[in-house]
């Protein structure tokens, strides 16, 4: 009840003219609308991700990097591998924005080519990991029992293998190239993803809505696709954002010990490795740009992964 005092201030006009009113049709669709818009899981996650400043910084950086990886080499007047020995070690200037390296090649152009390779390696490796991981983990978790036992023992054995050592071993024999690097990175890399998917499936398959689906006689493949996978997507995406930087790091690391992508390709790792000596003679820009982009890309993926982890966690939903 409003207090008397306030009621006094409320003055009704003597008469309200009829033309102020108009008849409205009944809106049958909106009759039962709830005032607050209902947010789907993904809309809500997105809303929370946007609030996370670090994660957005990472996301924006990655979007810009992708754009530059696609268009950078196109807008640059220089060719990636065009050597120009008289113009060796030019500091950054209007002509060469990031300077030139020991063979007079334009560092600006090479940086974006490196971005192409690093992002390509990272994304393809992550996608392959996800695909194998979902299939293996999904079957293992859903079937359970002896199948699960056998599949998990195999995973435990593979998980025990030192990741980078196996990669080195394979590359020594297969010879380093873009394809073999991705193959070597994924041959045991999917194991982590499979473990996560299995854990999730194991938990979700006992929920009532899956039981309901089963009691309608839904096929197993459909249950996995429609009931289980959408609900495991959160952890899978988080794991993916963390797989990409580890693949990028692995590629740079391999370049460093002489098993990286071979010329004429220029990955960030190769560029950094080539310019190790140059930094001591003061040509800092040859190392700075590839090093900065490796580090900042890994940083961006890491903070984005952290942000996604918080945003996609249903427990933190408000």
């Amino acid at each position: 009840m409003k207090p008397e005092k306030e009621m006094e201030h409320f003055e009704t006009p003597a008469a309200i003219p009829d033309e102020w009113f108009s008849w409205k049709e009944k809106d049958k669709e909106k009759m039962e609308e709830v005032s607050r818009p209902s947010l789907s899981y993904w809309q809500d996650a997105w809303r929370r991700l946007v609030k996370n400043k670090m994660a957005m910084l990472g996301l924006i950086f990655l979007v810009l990097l992708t754009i530059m990886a696609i268009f950078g080499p196109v807008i640059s007047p220089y060719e990636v591998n065009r050597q120009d020995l008289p113009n060796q070690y030019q500091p950054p200037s209007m002509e060469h924005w990031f300077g030139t390296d020991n063979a007079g090649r334009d560092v600006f152009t090479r940086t974006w080519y490196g971005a192409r390779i690093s992002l390509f390696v990272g994304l393809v490796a992550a996608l392959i990991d996800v695909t194998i991981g979902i299939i293996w983990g999904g079957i293992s978790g859903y079937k359970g029992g002896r199948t699960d036992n056998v599949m998990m023992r195999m995973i435990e054995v593979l998980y025990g293998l030192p990741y980078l050592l196996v990669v080195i071993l394979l590359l020594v024999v297969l010879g380093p190239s873009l394809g073999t690097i991705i193959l070597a990175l994924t041959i045991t890399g999917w194991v982590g993803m499979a473990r996560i998917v299995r854990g999730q499936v194991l938990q979700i398959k006992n929920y009532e809505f899956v039981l309901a689906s089963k009691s309608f006689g839904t096929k197993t493949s459909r249950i996995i696709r429609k009931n289980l996978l959408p609900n495991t997507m959160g952890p899978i995406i988080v794991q993916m954002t963390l797989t990409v930087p580890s693949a990028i790091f692995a590629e740079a690391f391999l370049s460093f010990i002489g098993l990286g992508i071979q010329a004429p390709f220029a990955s960030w790792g190769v560029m950094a490795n080539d310019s190790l000596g140059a930094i001591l003679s003061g040509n800092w820009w040859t190392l700075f740009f590839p090093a900065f982009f490796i580090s900042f890309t890994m940083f961006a993926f890491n903070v984005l992964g952290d942000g996604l982890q918080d945003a996609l966690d249903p427990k933190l939903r408000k």
Partner: protein
Amino acid sequence: MLKYIFKRLLIMIVTLWVIITLTFVLMVNIPGSPFNTDQSSNATVQANLEAHYNLDQPYYIQYLLYIKSIVTFEFGPSIKQPNQTVNDLLSRGFPISFELGIITIALAVVSGVLIGIIAALRHNGFLDYLTMGIAVLGISIPNFILATILIQQLAVNLEIFPAATWRSPAHMVLPILALATGPMAIIARLTRSTMLEVLTQDYIKMAKAKGLSPWKVIFKHALRNALMPVVTIMGTLFAGILTGTFVIEQIFAIPGMGRYFVESINQRDYPVIMGTTVFYSAFLIIMLFLVDIVYGILDPRIKMHQKGGRSR
């Protein structure tokens, strides 16, 4: 507990077998004979050499001999440096690499845990943001880039520390710093997040309520549980530090095992690569096994649900 150890032991042996078999299969499939170089293109010489290294035997005999040699800690000869075996390289390089690795791990664990605790206690405070900001950077900057920056700034520009080799404690500062920063950052972040979780639990309130000093509450009650996730990632950290020594030893010109390994990769000295990989892998797999056992001892819950209830 015994059953748990036995199960882990079995998995460890299978893992060792997989890596040994993998190296063998790869070695056999390397195109060309390992002696197919200019100096020894003579057919008789080559046949003699192959007989000496049992390469004329059928594969299954070679395989058994290979397993026998590894079980007896004979990791094979070098084909690029005559009269050198992997064992020679190991006895020369491993102590140095081991020293580097052990100091790095000790530094990373102790400082990482301390930083994590401080950040958790100052949750959402200035120190928390500062340390966690640095930690994210520490995870993002690859160790070989950090090493170059350290050499450039601290050794060349300011001349505080020597830039390379491994002679005195002063020589050790930069390589250890470059190698330890990443693991330290990972441990700090992990300790902070589990510490935050643990600190809200009832038994901590209880410990505070009964009048224990803050130090005792943190180090005796909270830390014990907060450290469990740190123990689980120790295996991965060992592996990271070990592979890290490859590049760090290369950059700082440290005559350790990692440097010989990278050299053998660049020279395509296949027997050395394979032998060293088997040695490294065995070392890591055994470490992983020990970490699992320690985890089993520290976490009393493992005894209760041994049946696959554990997720690492």
